[in-house]
């Protein structure tokens, strides 16, 4: 277990949102990823990190899909890398980790929509096009996950309803 400094400020990254930071006192958290995927990226040299909470594999053409930075995979990956670069990160140095893409409503029901599975496929492909290979993942299964990125250490922790936080 990693100890979070008492002063650490937890920034909640909601559905379709992105947060980037270079503040060592901050922890970026995406609570309860079900079929959503959390993309955590950290540049250990610049000490800059970011977290995207991606909802859908493709844009559904809605107003929210246009307005929100990580409503769908293509926007989420593009905007996360853009925001990290703007804060001084080098995309080539990024340590990228993925969590989520589960079938929390049951495997049989997930087969109809395959949203979690397709999120993972599309995000992985988008990262590959940018020569980024995730170095650790916690994907699939039937349980929701919470992912957090600690800016002080660059560590990414994942937990489920049944298990405590472990480093990814």
């Amino acid at each position, binding site marked *: 277990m990693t100890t979070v400094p008492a002063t650490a400020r937890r920034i*909640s990254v*909601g*559905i379709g949102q992105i947060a980037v930071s270079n503040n060592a006192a901050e922890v970026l958290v995406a*609570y*309860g*990823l*079900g*079929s*959503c995927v959390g993309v955590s990226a950290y540049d250990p040299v610049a000490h800059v990190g970011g977290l995207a909470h991606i*909802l*859908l594999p493709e844009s*559904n053409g*809605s107003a*929210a899909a246009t307005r929100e930075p990580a409503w769908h995979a293509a926007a989420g990956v593009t905007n996360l890398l853009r925001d990290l670069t703007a804060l001084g990160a080098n995309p080539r140095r990024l340590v990228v980790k993925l969590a989520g893409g*589960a079938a*929390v*409503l*049951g495997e*049989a*029901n997930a087969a*109809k*929509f395959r*949203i*979690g599975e397709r999120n993972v496929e599309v995000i992985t492909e988008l990262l590959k096009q940018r020569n980024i290979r995730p170095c650790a993942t916690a994907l699939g299964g039937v*349980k*929701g*996950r*919470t992912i957090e990125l600690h800016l002080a250490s660059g560590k990414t922790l994942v937990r*489920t*309803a*049944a298990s405590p936080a472990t480093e990814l």
Partner: protein
Amino acid sequence: MSIMTSRVAETLGEVATDGALRAARGLSGLVGEEIRIDVPQIRVGTNIDACDAVGGPDVIVFGAYIGITGDITGHVMLLFPQERAMECIDLMCGQPVGTSTEPDDFAASAIGELANIVGSAFVNALADRAGLILHPSPPTVLNDMAIALVESVYAAILAQGGEVVMIDTVFSDEKGTTSGLLIVAPDAEAFARIAELAA
């Protein structure tokens, strides 16, 4: 512009009341004593509202999910925060509310069965009211982070506008009372059919 008018909410409220009566009959038969189910409040909101209604994003809930297929498609989910779930098990076991405290496998499966009864009753009431053939899926028993469940339903309905209907569901017998949240997320066609009924 919301696709959910007050007339549609009213119609869904009537369907929920009918479903609650059916579920109460089924549940009372199962546990061998009279259990009432009331649906005092129905409202419409986003996924975030639904999470808040069961206690916030980091809360762990018990319940069950039922998918609807057939003439229309949609999602039904009954969720209880842990404490409410324990109270519900007390009601089902005919013991004073506050007796059960451990959220074990028995609790999860009992709540799954309860949620199945209530969710299926709602689907059947909707089918009768709308004159539709609807097939509830086998239930998935849930014991997970509230937001992960709500978010996954939200992702599945998003192409259709993304509103969910929240129905407070109150269970009571002579020994006590407790409540859960029934979340209904019909797709756009389903909303249109219900709107026709409401007109």
